[in-house]
């Protein structure tokens, strides 16, 4: 009986809360909110809040065209694998205190799963055989190299603060980070980590591929780049992946810097969703509304100097025990 209940509990966690259902609802919400907010900042009315859902359903109804030059299997499998990997990533993000899945070293798992998601985009576009996609994938590659360095530095800095009490002096586990924040207040209040938090806010739009860092999709220059040849179902999956990535990245920020536990699961969920909206607004909507698209080499330079510099300052401060 106990085993049965455990399994049931796990299934609930994976499929409903804080798992897939919660993820999907909040993802679409965030995507809709982002579009609405950007529109308001640009003095437009903007689409309805549920527009991403309509877009998704519309895409599903469209014909799937596979180019002749494409490698069929990889072309179709890549979006599927991409969606799967971001959904699995979402399962590791703790909402309040509890994640659907938790393992020691899950921050590194998340890092790698997000990389895997980018790689699937790249492989899919490589398989399409289109030269536009070729340019797009080269740019996606560059943006991946760009944000990975500050991202790693941020994770190390946070892990060092939260794991200061452990035997090895560092932690790679969301559970430890959550426990530290439950005991000592949120990490955003830690002065030495403020530059890291800022760096993380800047990493988010590049990782998600949001304007002004969407160099890989730049529709006016390279016809949607990596997505150039996609239509119908696979395109819908990429759109879904994009939305879930928004959730994962803003959720990751909340988990690392703003983890608030009340003890009530549902309340935690609501707070988490609200915080995600705030992070989305700050990190994705505002830059989108304010900045024009960056050039390829500018993105790289920006991330490896300013953003990585901020994260490195944090890491150094944390290491000195401040």
């Amino acid at each position, binding site marked *: 009986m106990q085993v049965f209940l455990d399994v049931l509990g796990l299934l609930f966690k994976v499929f409903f809360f804080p798992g897939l259902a919660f993820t999907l609802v909040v993802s679409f919400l965030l995507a809709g909110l982002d579009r609405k907010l950007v529109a308001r900042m640009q003095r437009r009315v903007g689409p309805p809040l549920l527009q991403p859902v309509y877009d998704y359903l519309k895409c599903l109804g469209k014909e799937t065209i596979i180019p*002749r*030059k494409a*490698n069929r299997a990889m072309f179709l499998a890549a979006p599927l694998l991409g969606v799967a990997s971001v959904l*699995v990533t979402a399962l590791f993000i703790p909402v309040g205190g509890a994640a659907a899945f938790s393992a020691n070293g899950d921050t590194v798992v998340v890092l790698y799963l997000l*990389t*895997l998601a980018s790689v699937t985009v790249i492989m899919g576009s490589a398989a399409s055989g289109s030269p536009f996609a070729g340019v797009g994938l080269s740019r996606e590659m560059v943006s991946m190299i760009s944000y990975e360095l500050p991202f790693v530095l941020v994770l*190390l800095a946070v892990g060092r603060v939260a794991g200061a009490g452990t035997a*090895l002096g560092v932690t790679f586990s969301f559970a430890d980070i959550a426990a530290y924040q439950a005991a000592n207040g949120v990490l955003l209040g830690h002065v030495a980590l403020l530059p890291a938090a800022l760096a993380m806010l800047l990493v988010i739009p590049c990782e998600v591929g949001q304007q002004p860092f969407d160099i890989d999709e730049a529709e006016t220059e390279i016809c949607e780049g990596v997505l150039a040849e996609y239509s119908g179902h696979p395109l819908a999956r990429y759109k879904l992946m994009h939305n879930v990535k928004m959730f994962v990245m803003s959720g990751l920020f909340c988990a690392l810097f703003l983890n608030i536990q009340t003890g009530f699961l549902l309340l935690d969920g609501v707070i988490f969703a609200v915080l995600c909206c705030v992070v989305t607004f700050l990190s994705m909507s505002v830059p989108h509304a304010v900045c024009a698209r960056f050039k390829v080499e500018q993105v790289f330079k920006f991330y490896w100097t300013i953003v990585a510099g901020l994260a490195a300052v944090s890491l150094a401060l944390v290491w000195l025990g401040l």
Partner: protein
Amino acid sequence: MSNFPILAVMALFMGAFINSLTGRRSRRVGNIVVFIAMAIALCLMLALIPPVFIEGQVITYWMGGWAPEAGWAYGIGLEVDALSLFFGLIVTIAVMVSGVYSFTYMAKDDSQVNFYTLFLMLSGSVLGLVLSGDLFNIFVMVEIMTFSAVALTAFRNDYEGALEGAFKYLVVGSIGSMCILVGTALIYANLHTLNMAQMAAMLPTQHNTVLVLAFGFLFVGFATKAFLFPFQPLAADAHAVAPASISLMISGVLTKCGVYGIIRLCYGLFQNIDTAAVQYLVTGFGCVTMFVCVTMAFNQHNFKRLLAFHSISQVGYVITAVGLGSALGVSAGLFHAVNHTLFKGLLFLVAGAVQHETGSLDLDGLGGLSKKMPRTCLLFLVGAASISGLPPFNGFASKWMIYQACFAKAGESGNFFYVLVCVVALITSVLTLASFVKVAQSVFYGQLPARYNDVHDCPAAMRAPIWVLAALCALLGVFPGFITRFFLKPATGAALDATAYADQMLGGSHAASAADFQLLGNWSPLVWVVLLLVVCCAVTIVAVSAKKGMAPVLEPAPLAPTDREDVCVAPENAKYEPFFSGEESEYSQVGGSDLFWGFKENWRKYFSFWHRWHSGIVNDYALYGVVALAAVLLYCLLFV
């Protein structure tokens, strides 16, 4: 049992001689001889697993029965502890795979009897090196190894640059061998023994300038054999021209000799790895190697040259981990060493398959082969995912251990240097991934040039050994706990416990104990591999059920034979032709080698510096080697 090691080495050497006697008449008989020799060596190594890894024995064998008298070793001995056997297994498995692959791959070459004779000499010498308990014997084996490898590099001497690559390897490799000889001589002059067990017992108590210099010489010697920075240009030149099965041997097996030598040297003989100076030396070498080589790989146009730089970059990981001096570090290094042999071997064999079928290794000219060689492409993706450290493959498991070891070291020592090492390792991993995306795009995806329309997949006999490696990559990635418990812990214990090594050989009874270390995260890949599969299936089911109302998927129509590409533009621009409306004169930032334009543009000074540095002139390379030797000797004198 005690004569298994010598029999394994002899089997390979005897195979070489018998092959040269019989193989000239009939290639089939020759191949059978080669196969039997390799199988005997492999079986003997496997038979040693239960006593050495499980019971913790150390197998010793004295040649000619010259057992030690009163604690002094006079004869030549073989000593197999868990560390030696670990490398022995890597060697014999790689030799088996490489040999079986060669049977098909080399089938069209002439004078194969020479090839297999040299191949077995190479294999025997490498196995002899890792099993030997005698430092001078190690030098002899290094010499046999270097010369047979040089000859094999130039085996296809009709290739452009084959003789040149071999010549560079010969010259700079000789500097390395000379260093090992000088180091051995200095130790012999001081301690009057060549037996490593006896050295291990005597060296830690003695500390004088000559012995410190000997350490420096031996370190540089083994670093040459592992092609660490600044010796990496040799590997690139040799790999690009050697047959693929020999590339596997050079990258998977020969570099391991260097790694083995450095572990034995720092942990077994001098036991000075717990001093900070030696840790900086070894880790620093590893760190520079892994970063410089991975960035060099960005600029390559030749498939195997690119793989060569990556190979050395991964060896850099191994050395970095080994230099940390902790049990976790050694385990991580050993794990990455075996993984490196597997995935790098796989990738070289795939490159060989591509070359076998298309006759080209030019990344700018190939393309779209996934349609013509789908199975090879799948194998390539496994190898690329492994080397880039993507879960669930083995590269991830071992790199994960390396990161942990670095960070644990940083936490224990409070030294920021090791945090930097960890960051460099993570960044190198991302750059590796980026670089393999380039290979995937330039070789297997993208557009298929018209001249490769009738290419087909390589023969099954060539794919079979690659499948073995791919399966091992996946298995080790999904069950890292297994190899950690049964192989890594005993081998690490053997590396760390030098007294056991010394004692057992000289007739004592100090038993080796398996090392114990705590992993930061009990990484259980199985859980989320299942998770990933479940989510994949769920998405597929949703997709399929929603497909009913959908228009049918367009079947790819057979390609109409057009000769447009041949007429309009030069073939090397064909891939990106539509992007420029067919105009060939415009500069393309996406040509295979320019895929990372945004990255390289920012780093152009760095890249042009290294471009000039890799001058291709053997005098320069020899000079770099000598400068490195001088620097290491000075460092040792001042700090060690």
